[in-house]
């Protein structure tokens, strides 16, 4: 009898699942073999251990739940002891810790101030001024950028003014990108730039002003298509409170931001979009919004100026819809997107590393 068979028999015997004849045979064998007997005893106690482990765990969780319920129902309240008693308690408890902490703090402070006087360079006042000038020049630069971005100001929502910038991302590795339609408003020529700074000429192949999606195709001869996209496209909306993140170009360098899904509808209950709480800036428009599995759940489109951190994204199922209409009007069209993400089980920073290669800055030359 092999080990597996034997173990199974022992277990059946212990659970009383053997029939009479089998049981008799087993007990006989057990009497004749000290080894088998030993195995039965060991097995029994081991399985009891496992079962006890399970029971205890369940009991602990019941206790935990009970405590939680009673606390919520107000049966368990925090005891208020008199302030002075509390302070004396705290003092007597932490007296030793406090003494040690104070002396360590003292020594460290002396040590550090010694080190600082020893090593700090004698800073001339010029350096500091220069720094300030740099800051102000940076400020000027960024205000120029802001002004430029404001040119794309949309007039869709007069009540809640929204600002736009330009990001796009690959939906098909052959060179098809998705972005927000409003980013391309009044465009004469469109360039997209990848995270390494390479620029490619692109053109609009389809756009839907209502859903605020546009699909671009890179027409540049320099563009080399990549094999496969790491992320997939979700057909359904993520649940409320699920963490999401986005990548975009609010400045020349790619920027990562994270937040969560706060509502399944957009501004004034718009069902084409959803609401996120995430920090986004002009320039993030058109960027992908991904969930923790690395699936694109939407395209970042706008933020509400009157509230902080409230951002709207067009749901990704609208991309599917738009592609469907494209296919209907042009049968030669071969844009394909898939819903399985290959970065599902890797950590966030590795995900981002893979995703950022497919996120492009959109540069619009106005006509």
């Amino acid at each position: 009898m092999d080990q597996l068979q034997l173990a199974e028999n022992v277990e059946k015997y212990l659970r009383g699942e053997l029939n009479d004849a089998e049981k008799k045979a087993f007990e006989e064998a057990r009497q004749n073999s000290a080894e088998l007997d030993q195995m039965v005893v060991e097995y029994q106690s081991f399985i009891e251990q496992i079962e006890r482990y399970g029971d205890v765990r369940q009991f602990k969780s019941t206790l935990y739940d009970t405590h939680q319920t009673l606390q919520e129902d107000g049966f368990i309240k925090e005891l208020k002891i008199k302030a002075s008693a509390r302070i004396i308690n705290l003092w007597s408890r932490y007296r030793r810790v406090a003494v040690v902490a104070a002396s360590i703090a003292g020594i460290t402070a002396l040590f550090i101030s010694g080190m600082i006087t020893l090593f700090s360079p004698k800073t001339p006042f010029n350096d500091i001024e220069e720094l300030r000038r740099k800051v102000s020049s940076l400020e000027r630069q960024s205000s120029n950028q802001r002004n430029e971005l404001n040119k794309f100001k949309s007039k869709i929502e007069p009540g809640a003014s929204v600002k736009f910038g330009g990001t796009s991302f690959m939906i098909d590795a052959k060179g098809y990108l998705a972005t927000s339609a409003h980013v391309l408003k009044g465009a004469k020529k469109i360039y997209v730039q990848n995270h390494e700074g390479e620029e490619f000429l692109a053109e609009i192949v389809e756009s839907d002003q209502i859903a605020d999606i546009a699909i671009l195709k890179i027409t540049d001869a320099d563009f080399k298509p990549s094999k496969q996209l790491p992320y997939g496209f979700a057909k359904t909306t993520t649940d409320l409170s699920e963490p999401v993140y986005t990548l975009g170009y609010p400045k020349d360098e790619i920027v990562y931001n994270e937040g969560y899904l706060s509502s399944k509808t957009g501004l004034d209950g718009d069902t084409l979009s959803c609401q996120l709480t995430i920090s986004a800036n002009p320039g993030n428009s058109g960027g992908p919004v991904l969930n923790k599995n690395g699936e694109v759940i939407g395209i970042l489109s706008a933020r509400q100026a009157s509230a902080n951190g409230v951002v709207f994204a067009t749901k990704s199922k609208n991309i599917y819809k738009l592609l469907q209409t494209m296919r209907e009007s042009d049968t030669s069209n071969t844009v394909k997107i898939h819903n399985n993400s290959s970065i599902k089980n890797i950590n966030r920073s590795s995900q981002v590393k893979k995703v950022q290669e497919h996120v492009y800055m959109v540069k619009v030359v106005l006509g």
Partner: protein
Amino acid sequence: MGITEQEKIAFKAIGNNEKEAIELVYKENYGLIQHFVVYNNGTEDDARDIFQEAMMVLYEKSKQPDFELTCQIKTYLYSVCRRLWLKKLQHARRIEMQIENFDNIVPVEEDLEDHEKLTKQYLIMRTAMGKIGEPCKSLIEAFYVHHKNMQEIAGFFGYTNADNAKNQKYKCLVRLKKLFFAQYKNQ
């Protein structure tokens, strides 16, 4: 003070992990223990931990066939908590305990020794379970803790048939056994 029939039923029910009974005992006794711990240099969290550990002792005793509760649940819980908290205070070298006039104390030292032993075993099993990894952990739990049969398990874990699942379970059990006894014998 003797023990009523009602208390006996509640005591048995705790061993069976019955929610209503646990909640009842919790409601009736938590306040006293909380008061005791918080007024003796403890925090709210200490009170909760001590009380839940005492409930655990009660649970173990209820499961033990040869144990008979001879005093009220309240008295037993208080005695256990008192002992546990005193030990914790001594451990932290804070022995300024206000001795309360509570004459209903039963000796629980032996019970606590048993409890310590069982807790150690539980922790060893927990560590071993943590080390065998998935799907072994879920497989073993499904069979021995949730008492699912092999057909269900095969379906749930995506094995082609019950025999495959059985085979896998056996391998997992052997690994778990090795991990468990490696620690257990060290104790």
